[in-house]
């Protein structure tokens, strides 16, 4: 099968530094003294804890239930006792803490009962639920749940398996492909079946000839549908969009999913985990991690999820002049704020850094608009323009110039002759824009609340008025019944006036009712006298009224 390759613009060629750790087979890391298993293993979703302190768990036992659309299950990585459930820091630039289950291993590493899933006997939805239950997420770093990525299972032409591993220093995928090629491809074929793809293409950077050979040998028995394709070594060829472009020619814009374009992409580690989950029923409890850099014994280790970096580092033996540790690769990794952070599903590498291997950047100079960054940018952006706009806090302009198409691969900062930490500026601008967006949302909510308050006050006023009017009407009705209704219905519109009128009416009525009472006990003579006086007064009043012109 002849595979036409496409290119992507830009890209850089940092020194690969793969040989340090790629020469030795994957070793199994010894059981750590304690495991800190974060309940947040997939992107944007923290699992609900299912265990309590003191509870005994087996390896592979369900300890966290995924919640929401992006949730996946979390499992105990070994058998032992849950000793604590508390927030612990994760590997994140901000030192983010997340609720974690701390397990003290009992040393037996005893599996819970697990059985393979026969794909022929279950529906596609059941298979996806199985993967969710096995906690399968993308192992390339982002941790996106695999069952979500498998989506509707329609309209996919090409399944891309990412074995490019373009970041310098990292070799975990290289060793995995060299040693477990059949398993990786088995997982790829399962993914292909579940997503309904016509063909599978495995992209591997051509600086890994052993991995390519092993994968091609394993693929030879699987027919024409699967092709292992060497791709040119050019960072970031392992970026999902870049690899899809190289292997299929399809360009996926920011914010769109591969499925919209008939392509989907999974990492080789994910394919391997899918194989274990389906063929053996094993949930994802360990992964291969590269330990390299300024260490005595660089290499790759099969590490239980939740193993703290500090315990892991002992295996490699960092040298005395190590001054910091980078999780991930040197282009996109994160400097660890604490060595107590645990290995998670997306942890591929821990680099011990020394000033000699990773010298601190020389002082920043002004941008001379040389355009080296634009020529290196795989997203085909104008990074220096984004830098000017971000620096000037002209965020609207930065967005117009496609700030959010930036994948933060670091190529621009890598080539910048003025050594400007360009990616920092983009992170800053993105953070500010997100913050403003949140603020805008918050102020929208505040405005909504304010408007509702006004509405509510208005409504209450109206209700009160209506009540008063009703009361007034009632009173009038009562008066009407008593036959002395004051003739003033026209003014009933105004509830206050109505009320006043009603009160007056009531007073009059009372007066009227009271007056006869005062004369109740009088003699007939006196009453006649009063009537006489009244008549005279009436007469005088009449005369006065007649005199008046």
């Amino acid at each position, binding site marked *: 099968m002849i595979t036409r390759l496409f290119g*992507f*613009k830009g890209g*850089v060629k*940092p*020194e690969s530094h793969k040989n340090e750790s790629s020469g030795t087979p994957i070793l199994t890391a010894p059981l750590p003294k304690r495991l800190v298993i974060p309940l947040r293993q997939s992107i944007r979703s923290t699992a609900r804890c299912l265990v309590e302190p003191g509870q005994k768990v087996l390896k592979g036992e369900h300890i966290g239930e995924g919640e929401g659309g992006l949730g996946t299950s979390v499992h105990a990585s070994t058998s032992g006792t849950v000793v604590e459930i508390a927030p612990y820091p994760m590997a994140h*630039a901000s030192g983010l803490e997340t609720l974690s289950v701390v397990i003290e291993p009992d040393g037996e590493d005893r599996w819970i009962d697990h059985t393979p899933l026969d794909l022929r006997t279950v529906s596609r939805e059941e298979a996806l639920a199985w993967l969710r239950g096995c906690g399968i997420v993308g192992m390339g770093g982002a941790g996106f749940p695999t069952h979500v990525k498998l989506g509707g299972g329609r309209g996919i032409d090409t399944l891309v398996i990412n074995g490019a591993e373009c970041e*310098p220093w990292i070799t975990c995928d290289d060793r995995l492909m060299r040693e477990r090629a059949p398993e990786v491809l088995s997982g790829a074929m399962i993914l292909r079946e579940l997503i309904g793809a016509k063909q599978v293409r495995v992209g591997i950077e051509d600086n890994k000839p052993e991995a390519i050979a092993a994968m091609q040998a394993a693929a030879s028995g699987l027919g024409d549908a699967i092709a292992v394709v060497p791709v040119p070594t050019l960072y970031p060829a392992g970026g999902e*969009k870049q690899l899809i*472009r190289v292997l299929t020619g399809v*360009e*996926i*814009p*920011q914010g*769109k999913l591969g499925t919209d374009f008939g392509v989907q992409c999974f990492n080789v580690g994910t394919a391997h985990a899918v194989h274990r989950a389906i063929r053996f029923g094993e949930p994802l409890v360990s992964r291969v991690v590269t330990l390299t850099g300024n260490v005595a014994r660089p290499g790759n280790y099969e590490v239980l999820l939740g193993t703290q970096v500090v315990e892991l580092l002992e295996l490699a033996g960092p040298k005395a002049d190590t001054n910091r540790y*980078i999780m991930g690769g*040197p*282009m*996109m*990794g*994160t*400097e660890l*704020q604490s060595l107590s952070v645990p290995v998670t599903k997306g942890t591929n590498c821990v680099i011990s*850094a020394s000033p000699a291997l*990773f010298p*601190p*950047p*020389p*002082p920043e*100079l*002004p*941008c*001379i*608009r*040389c*355009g*080296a960054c*634009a*020529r290196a940018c*795989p*997203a*085909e*952006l*104008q990074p*220096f*323009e984004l830098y000017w706009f971000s620096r000037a806090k002209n965020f609207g302009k930065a967005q*117009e*110039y*496609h700030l959010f*198409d930036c994948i933060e691969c*670091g190529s621009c*900062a*890598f*080539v*910048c*002759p*003025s*050594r400007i*930490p360009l*990616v*920092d500026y983009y992170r800053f601008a993105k953070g500010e824009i997100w913050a403003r967006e949140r603020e805008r949302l918050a102020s929208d909510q505040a405005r909504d609340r304010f408007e509702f308050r006004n509405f509510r006050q208005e409504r209450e006023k109206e209700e009160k008025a209506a009540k008063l009017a009703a009361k007034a009407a009632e009173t009038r009705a009562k008066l009407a019944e008593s036959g002395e209704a004051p003739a003033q219905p026209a003014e009933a519109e105004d509830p206050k006036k109505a009320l006043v009128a009603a009160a007056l009416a009531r007073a009059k009525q009372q007066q009227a009712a009271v007056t006869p009472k005062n004369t109740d006990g009088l003699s007939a003579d006196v009453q006649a006298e009063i009537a006489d006086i009244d008549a005279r007064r009436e007469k005088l009043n009449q005369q006065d009224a007649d005199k008046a012109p």
Partner: protein
Amino acid sequence: MINSPYIRKPASVQGVMLAVLTALVPAIVIYAWQIAAVVLVNLAIATIAALAGEALVLKLRGRPLAPALSDLSAVVTAWLLALCFPPILPWWATMLGVLIAIVAVKHLYGGLGQNPFNPAMVAYCAMIVAFPALMSQWPAAGQLDFATQLGLVLGGARELDAIASATALDTIKTGLRTAGATVQSIMSQGGNFGLVSGRGWEWLAPAYALGGLYLLARGIITWHMPAAFLGALAAISAAFWLADPTHYASPLFHLASGGAMLGAFFIVTDPVSGATTPRGKLIFAACIALVAYIIRTFGAFPEGVAFAVLLLNICVPLIDMNTQPRVFGYKGDKGDKAR
């Protein structure tokens, strides 16, 4: 804390500037050997003035001296000016020009990377407007001995008519004003012309081109600007020349004369003040060539590259804004004007 990436290519502004200076060496050698050795003195004067001027402004601005002085950008400006000015320009005029470039055009706008105009070209234009006589005294190649050249540069009596001549561009332009003169008749009189342009001077063109190719090979400049500039200059001069070869000089003459080659590889390509997008670079450089040709042929000044560069510097934001390249993933979208 330092954020990713943790590794960097060993590239520096100093390295870029050093490459530009290296690329100028072939032309400097030809200049000193074929035309006037005093250019070496001028280069030294310009360099000293540039560094002194930069140091002075940095001190006034309270900025650290070392990073800015060692980035060599001021030296590049100084060398370009020394190569643009007539070689027998008095020392104080060279210094004045360099100080205009460094102090006024570069630092008053904020220093390295902030100037909207090409410092060397503003200084050149300012000098030609302020000192038109001094700025148009060019010696014929190899006419004066070094002592005389040095005497003229360092001061002393200037018997202008005896030593000064006009450049090839100027000779043709003024010559054509005489009734009945043709390009051919002008070029055949006197010994001022060589194979295609000014005798001796014409060899600077291939030397600049050689340096330019070195910059292209090093990836310091891209092909867009030299190709568009030289292509457009050749095209417009060919059009006029084909229409009337007696009154318009050949494309080869235009490419080998004045600041064409220096401009194509070293002036137009200034990243700070030029267009930055691939299509923008083509438009920017081609327009400079067209304006330069018009000034050369029809304008009041014998050479137009400097004025053309400044005119197009003004247009850079407009050009850049309207030629934004397509972004990855936006198919069929020409990328015009980021939306």
